[in-house]
């Protein structure tokens, strides 16, 4: 449903605003890498704009810090109404390595609502293009949560039933596995 809405609203082109709220500039370099002729995203109509008032999409890099959270919120409020937020990188998705330090509030979703997540530290330029392509509906997402239940032990247990008589000796059959 979100995908249909995206296609309807952002069918022609996405103008992105690039907001760094305290990242290490790794993701910034990758985002600017996406805009080079090599990974030309202007063929999808994506264009970097300088002001959040012109933008449809906000690309967030870096965690929400105590010092920058209010500015991030103000930039989000300044964007016109159909708006998307992309969290790029491990910091924006989950708070980064320093997620529990005093200056870091956590992921940007604590401050503003996030629509799409592109994890990675930093994500490859292809991963960012893939995230945008997922958002505009060109490709489907590939990840799904995995739950696994272990029903038996990975290591064989000693059990008297595996004892076997062999040439007047009692030998444990699975001795090489233990």
């Amino acid at each position: 449903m979100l995908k249909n809405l995206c296609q309807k609203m952002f069918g022609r082109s996405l103008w992105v605003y690039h907001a760094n709220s305290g990242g290490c500039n790794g993701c910034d370099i990758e985002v600017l890498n996406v805009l080079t002729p090599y990974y030309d995203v202007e063929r999808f109509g994506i264009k970097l704009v300088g002001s959040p008032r012109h933008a449809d999409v906000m690309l967030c890099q870096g965690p929400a810090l105590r010092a920058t959270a209010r500015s991030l919120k103000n930039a989000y409020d300044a964007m016109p109404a159909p708006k998307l937020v992309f969290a790029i990188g491990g910091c924006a998705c989950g708070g980064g390595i320093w997620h529990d330090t005093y200056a870091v509030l956590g992921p940007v979703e604590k401050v503003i609502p996030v629509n799409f997540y592109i994890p990675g530290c930093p994500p490859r330029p292809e991963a960012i293009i893939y995230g945008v392509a997922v958002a505009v509906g060109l490709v489907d997402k590939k990840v799904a949560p995995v739950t696994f239940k272990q029903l038996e032990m990975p290591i064989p247990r000693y059990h008297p039933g595996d004892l076997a008589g062999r040439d007047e000796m009692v030998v444990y059959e699975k001795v090489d596995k233990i």
Partner: protein
Amino acid sequence: MLMFSKFKEAMIGLKTGRVTLDYPAKPRPVAENFRGRPIFDATKCIGCAGCANNCPAREILVLDVCQEIRILQYLGRRCTYCGRCADVCPEKAITMSLEFETATNKIGDLQQRLDLFMSTCQRCGRCFKETSPLEKLKLKGYRFDDLANERWIFRSRSYLEGEPVADDIKIQMD
């Protein structure tokens, strides 16, 4: 002279040809030493929690439900793909895959949860001791991480219940 330099520029452009990749239509292979998303193999995992104790982003949570069942949860949201978990795993149950196309609209899609059956001694019913001194170093005893709030709980009980410590955002915003 100016015309000549423009002509030279055009020649360089023609010589280079088209460099733009046709990426989302065609797959693009990764480099040889690329580390992507770690994949947990539950059939090999013995639940030593070495990966959880060595994770720099502290995003592998361990919850001991009882003596014999341990839940190991990889969140995947702030993973830096450093590969340390794959290095310390004694059973090689974690492999760094080549997946990088992990963009999603729900952050819960990235998590992997393993319900592990912990092997116990048949005589006393307690867990086996770690065999090597390296594994003893990493052992931090039973762990009761907060899976609902996705928080790693330190052994020194420096974890505060309920709201996180630095949650003065509301005061700042208003």
